[in-house]
């Protein structure tokens, strides 16, 4: 498959690549993700039991407590943070969390990433230029 480049909006700078992990449901980090392991622990979440560490995490937006931003920093310190984040529409909890944790993040992708991306597919996020590159 040829490389596809999708324009998006810069939220947090930096570049990273990894395998996509896709959630159609919002993610709340406080109480939703274990900061020690990177495993999603929210009961009934579509990604419950999956590990977000090193993945390009694709989800619509954040939810829950604002302390979630700090949990993202804990994940980064434990080397269990996602490699990059793609949101449909960023809100302050995830945006702030990504910036303080130095996780590249974009939102408002120009194409439907839920249709374009598949679980495990290699994808690159360029937070400097605001690009998603499907490899």
């Amino acid at each position, binding site marked *: 498959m040829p490389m596809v480049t999708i324009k998006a*909006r*810069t*939220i*947090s*700078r930096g570049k990273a690549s990894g395998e996509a992990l896709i959630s159609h449901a919002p993610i709340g980090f*406080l109480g939703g993700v274990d*900061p020690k392991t990177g495993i999603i622990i929210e009961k009934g979440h579509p990604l419950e039991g999956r590990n977000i560490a090193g993945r390009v995490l694709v989800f619509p937006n954040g939810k829950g407590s*604002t*302390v979630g*931003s*700090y*949990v993202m*920093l*804990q994940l980064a*310190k434990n080397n269990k943070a996602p490699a990059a984040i793609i949101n449909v529409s*960023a*809100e*302050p*909890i995830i*945006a*702030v969390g990504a*910036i*303080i944790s130095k996780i590249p993040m974009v939102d408002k992708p120009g194409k439907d990433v839920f249709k374009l991306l598949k679980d495990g597919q290699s994808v690159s996020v360029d937070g400097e230029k605001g690009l998603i590159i499907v490899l």
Partner: protein
Amino acid sequence: MLLTKQEQSMYDGELGEAAQQSMEILAALGAIYGAEKTIPVTSAQIAGVSYKTIGDAGLEYLQDLASKGAKTLVPSFLNPAGMDREQWREMKIPEDFAKKQIAILDAYSSMGIMKTCTCAPYFIGIRPKKGEHVAWSESSAIAFANSVLGARTNREGGPSALAAAICGVTPYYGLHIDENRVAEVVIDVRCELKTMADFGALGSAVGKLAKNRYPAFRGIKRASESMLKVLGASMAATGSVPLFFIEGITPEWSIAEDAQRIEFTEADLSASRKGLDSGLKPDLVTIGCPHASLEEIKEVAELVSKRKPTCEFWVCTSAKLRKEADRLGYGKAIEAAGGFVVADTCMVVCPLEEMGHVVTGTNSGKAAAYLPNLCKQKVAFGDLEDILYR
């Protein structure tokens, strides 16, 4: 968002890593909310202080930022902590909790933030004027600053208020823009509001139906600043109301043409009061949510001097007003009646549930909203004369 030269150099890291990270936060928020530029702020009020709410994750974040040399550019103040800085042992706060709490306060202090630890800074002289732009993050203080003082602040989170403090600016959107300060729901109050609990019950009911819309009240004849405080705090707790108007009382009054109109009757007031009250006898009564004004402390002192309450009770306030209360003899009167004037903290952010309390009494609609979930407490809601002697 358009950045000034100074902001761009912050964003590019020329003024250090802490300023860079803070400017990145503001730029991202500006993008999310569609701000075209920033606006200078004259003060920042920072929430996310209690170890109970921010935990180890928050502590690490603050220490991280402090170690990068973060320094504030504008006067900045803290929200309540999880304990009284002086009397935490008397409060039976666990040793480990106290250690972490002190580390949080030290991290903030090293950035140049004043350890005022109050949710009601406007009662200790921090009163931005009408039209002044600030970045405040305590929901009840946001409501008071916007509505009662006529200052301009959005609902900041802890990190965004801290970023504003470090950069001296905030993205220009929302409540900073005059045209956006318009009420979308009008509440015709058709009953007399006499006590703090009445204002708390009104706020609790209106917050639920207003959600994030701005309400305008008609028919409130008089209200003290303490009552306005509790009204705004309750609406911010059950809804997310950052601005309200009261005809003839608040400095601003602006209503949308298609505003929804709702009546609030004696029956609504009584239903709201009943809905907040479990009817149980409290083992602890906490007064001062948000932090008590000097008038409130005086009222409690006078009441308990006449008759000793039948339960343990705290009056929560700032360290500054506790000192003033002591000087005026109110502190002594409260202690003589078996009470405790607690500074720097409050019933919602301190670890009440770990201290053996089950039923907590309050006259605040905000405390009534948060005590069940945050502190696993049953709530006794009512006027002071009721809850202190139930």
